[in-house]
């Protein structure tokens, strides 16, 4: 009688056929999210190549796909960790610690000698991509490293850099930043290995010290030489620090083993457990039922799951469109200036929003007419960006400017150079603009391409602000990516998604896993429209709950303003409106009429508010901005040294009357010049170096000396020795 062990994992299927303890056949293959198909193929091959016989031989299954498939083939389901532990106990009685890293999960097992034998302590995590194989592979793919090369990349001897160990998407961003900063690919990969080992030790040891001997299992541990080196490095350090001694005559390399069959331990464990099962348990019933499931069953399941749709019938859509048609779908506002004759001569205010990827400007009249809008894709030189914006404004016929306000990332850099009357923090600008169109607004939800911002207003102030710029699960770029993959223009997204009569349920959360969920749903037969509908439907959950961490929408308020480029997609708007109204039935939801320009409009409104007709604007003037004289320096002295990324910054020095200059700088600047730093990848790089930090710190210290803080007094005095009285 043969006993078969099969591990149906998240990325691969692994199987062994044994007879009398001898392995007759084994294989592993990636299934590309087709778990059932790959299993069916394996069973067929095992029948043909290893004599697997229905109603005679036994099958035991484990892994994330086993719960569904085991009953279809008469097999018995074995819990994964139990299976691995059984194989380890059989094959390696001296092992005290096991790490098994899979595609989308990770586990550790501690074996402790106790009176009656061995006790096992097991930890596992499968909710997040941090610390798993996907974490490494996803980034390696982005860096275009072929699989064979990745397997051979070392950890030992490489310089390491800070990479987020918690999330695959964070890590990818970090890797990109490192790459941009010129860090060699090899060092980035070594840093990823470091992050994976750190994450496993940090989350899956819970106070236990891994003791020798150690077994490393699973695909990533087997295939990535660098990952093995990282384990050896960290465990050796840990052992030295905690005084763990190795068995006589053995080295660290001897006691950290990666067995050749590292992939098959779960499958082998199934066999091991199967041998002890009662007669008749796990009797293989053939692959017919599985075939039926693949061909028909899963599609029936799809029909059962369906039924809900983004649009609940034609009436629902009609009502929705009547209310929201045209609001926000217009794309970037392209208000043409009215003919000169028709315009009242009114004071005009300019608001500019210098963001990290685009710069935008609007011209607003004193009575609130939007006279002109323009934008420019940032090209890395804020002076050139500004010149381009103001050239456009001037060409549109604007001559006299009553006030200029800046907002966004560039507001402090450019304030003096452009002669802005005020710099406005982005939250205030957004609130201003939302309150202008919706004076009672409680919540502003801005979903952009790469970030999600939620602002909660109370008492006319921005009382709370949630920013999520590090997790892709709630933003528009992901939606756009999927639409692109289906070859659908973003403008047609909504129409397509509304066509869907039903849609699958996607799980909220980690974008890495959402991607594989989509592939999975596609395979079940869901069409492009249906998947796009479901993606729009899951977005509000990601925005409010996952990214915004706002469980209780009702507490946030009743009147919602949606803005940001992603809300130009009416499928998203529909999902948002339905989601918000389900949570807050009396909610009013409106779309900002100039979705993408809200920040610039808010700035212009602030300029109008600050306007004093008796005091001239500080605005430098179109001619002065056009003629701005600057020189750009990029040299060894402009490289940022705040972290290992070492961004190659540019110092753009601009001539500004009355500017202080920077005598203390490595690239000294004479009075009458102002410096703008560009090419840095994080805000820290806006500070030139330790010299400037000292200047900034001194200013802050002075401020802090002038204005006391009782918390600081405690920090400085409470832990010093007490003066004994009397």
């Amino acid at each position: 009688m043969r006993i078969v062990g099969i591990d149906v994992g998240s990325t691969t299927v692994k199987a062994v056929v044994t007879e009398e303890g001898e392995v007759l056949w084994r294989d592993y293959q990636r299934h590309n999210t087709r778990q059932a198909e790959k299993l069916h193929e394996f069973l067929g091959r095992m029948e043909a190549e290893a004599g697997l016989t229905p109603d005679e031989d036994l099958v035991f299954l484990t892994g994330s796909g086993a719960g569904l498939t085991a009953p279809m083939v008469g097999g018995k389901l074995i819990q994964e960790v139990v299976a691995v532990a059984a194989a380890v106990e059989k094959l390696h009685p001296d092992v005290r610690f096991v790490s098994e890293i899979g595609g989308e999960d990770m586990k550790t097992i501690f074996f402790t000698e106790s009176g009656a034998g061995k006790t096992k302590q097991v930890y596992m995590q499968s909710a997040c991509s941090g610390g798993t194989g996907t974490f490494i592979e996803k980034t390696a793919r982005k860096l275009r490293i072929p699989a064979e090369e990745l397997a051979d990349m070392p950890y030992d001897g490489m310089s390491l850099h800070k990479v987020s160990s918690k999330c695959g998407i964070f890590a990818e961003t970090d890797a990109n930043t490192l790459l941009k900063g010129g860090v060699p690919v090899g060092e980035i990969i070594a840093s990823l290995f470091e992050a994976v080992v750190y994450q496993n030790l940090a989350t899956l040891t819970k106070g236990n010290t891994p003791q020798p001997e150690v077994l490393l299992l699973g695909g990533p541990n087997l295939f990535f030489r660098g990952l093995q080196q990282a384990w050896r490095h960290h465990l050796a350090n840990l052992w030295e620090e905690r005084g763990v001694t190795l068995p006589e005559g053995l080295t660290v390399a001897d006691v950290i083993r990666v067995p050749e069959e590292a992939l098959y331990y779960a499958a082998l464990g199934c066999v091991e457990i199967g041998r002890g099962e009662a007669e008749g348990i796990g009797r293989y019933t053939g692959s017919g039922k599985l075939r039926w499931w693949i061909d028909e069953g899963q599609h029936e399941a799809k029909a059962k799951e369906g039924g809900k749709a983004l649009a609940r019938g034609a009436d629902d859509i009609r009502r929705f469109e009547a209310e929201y048609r045209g609001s926000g779908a217009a794309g970037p506002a392209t208000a043409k200036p009215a003919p000169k004759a028709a315009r009242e001569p009114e004071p005009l205010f300019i608001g500019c929003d210098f963001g990290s990827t685009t710069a935008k400007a609007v011209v607003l009249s004193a009575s609130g007419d939007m006279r002109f809008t323009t934008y420019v894709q940032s090209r890395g030189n804020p002076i050139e960006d500004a010149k381009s914006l103001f050239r456009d404004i001037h060409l549109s016929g604007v001559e006299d400017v009553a006030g200029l306000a800046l907002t966004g990332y560039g507001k402090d850099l450019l304030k003096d150079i452009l002669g802005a009357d005020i710099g406005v923090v982005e939250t205030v600008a957004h609130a201003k603009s939302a309150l202008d169109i919706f004076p009672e607004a409680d919540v502003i939800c801005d979903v952009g391409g790469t970030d999600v911002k939620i602002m909660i207003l109370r008492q006319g102030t921005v009382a709370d602000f949630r920013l999520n710029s590090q997790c892709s699960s709630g933003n528009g770029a992901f939606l756009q990516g999927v639409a692109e993959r289906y070859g659908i223009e973003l403008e047609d997204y909504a129409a397509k998604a509304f066509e869907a009569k039903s849609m699958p349920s996607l799980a909220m959360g980690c974008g890495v896993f959402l991607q594989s969920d989509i592939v999975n749903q596609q395979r079940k037969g869901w069409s492009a429209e249906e998947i796009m509908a479901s993606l729009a439907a899951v977005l509000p959950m990601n925005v409010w709950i996952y990214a915004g961490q706002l469980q209780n929408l009702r507490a946030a308020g009743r009147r919602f303003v949606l803005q940001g480029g992603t809300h130009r997609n009416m499928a998203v708007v529909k999902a948002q409106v339905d989601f918000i109204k389900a949570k807050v039935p009396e909610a009013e939801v409106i779309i900002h009429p100039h979705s993408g320009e809200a920040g610039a409009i808010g700035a212009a409104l602030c300029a109008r508010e600050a306007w004093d007709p008796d005091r001239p604007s500080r605005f430098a003037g179109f001619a002065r901005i056009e003629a701005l004289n600057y020189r750009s320096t990029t040299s060894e002295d402009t490289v940022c040294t705040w972290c290992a990324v070492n961004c190659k910054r540019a110092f753009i020095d601009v001539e500004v009357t009355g500017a202080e200059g920077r005598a203390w700088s490595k690239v000294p600047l004479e009075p009458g010049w102002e410096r703008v730093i560009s090419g840095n990848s994080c805000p820290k790089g806006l500070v030139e170096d330790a010299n400037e930090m000292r200047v900034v710190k001194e200013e802050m210290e002075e401020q802090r000396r002038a204005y006391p803080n009782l918390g600081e007094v405690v920090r400085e005095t409470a832990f010093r020795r007490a003066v004994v009285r009397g």
Partner: protein
Amino acid sequence: MSEADRAARAKLRVGIPKALNVWTTHQFWLGFFQSLGLSPRNVVFSSDTSDEQMREFGSGRGTVDCCYPVKCVSGHYGELIFGQKRKIDILFSPMIYSLASFLDGHAMDSLACPRVMAAPENIKAGFLREKDVFAENRIAHVAPLVTLAEPKLVPRQLFDALQGVVPGLGIEETARAVEEGYATLAAFNENLRARSREILEWCARERRPCVMVLARPYHMDPGIGHEIEADLQACGYPILWLQYFPTDPELLNWIFRADLAEGLIKHPFDIDDVWPSSYSANTNEILWGAKVAARVPWITCAIRLASYECGMDQPSFTPVQQIVERSGTLFFSFQELDSTKAAGSVKIRVETISYYLERNSPGIIEAKLRHMDPACPLLRRPVSADLPA
């Protein structure tokens, strides 16, 4: 005490984790140990909480999943055990069951959060589960349960815990040391209250705004509260912490005059009108602080700090917010503080707060002053010249 005991005590080194309610009892312990004849140099605290501390000394020592302020104590333990140039003999980690509070006598009780109280037991386990790290390093882990709200019980609690650890310890000298501890802490608190009063007098005189922080004491730890209030301080606002608000009756009677007259409260320290289930010392004080922030005209903004998933803070979020906001005072809360500072969004929020503070403070001060008796005790004392005119 024998000469030998005296000499032994002078050499004894005690390490105290600078965590949790040690942030409000620091000087008690310093006064206590010094009174017992320990050298002040030999009573050391761990450093402020930090990621580096946790990574270097605490990783892999976690046991029960808990809030970050409790979890990070593993790092403090590790640092005291492994990271001292001169080894300590005693790791003193009090399980503070109840706290002395200025609200004592006006609240139901003065208890510490049970998770905070039990933290030493929880954290200790991470250093015992495989081998006894304390024994290995010849360090006595002393974690007495102390009821600081009931001073009469404290000498026995500390004597039982330290007997045999502090050579020749007697119960009477322990009682004296406890008294010394309370006195030292009281002197420290009085000094800080006087500083707060100076700030308030300056604000009243100059009609300038200040900010009040409403948080648990350990949010003063840079690794827990991330010095968010210091960022506001750098924008030019003095910062008060509710723990050190002046308690002179004259000032408090002025602040709560209307409430007392209407019979809403029986005493300025009475919080029964807003928080009847007043069992937790830190929570009670936060609620009281909210009432003060709402009434004092120059406190134009209150900042609430709370750690992620704090079960003690959660029920008080809405009452505190509403007490402060209903008075027209600005209110901003940072409710999900964790191990890392979300520097980007904190920076934007601090700039936002600073914008509204600058714009709205004059109006808020004026509106709040209208409810107050013009005879303000803060304007009566001679001018102190510490703050910018």
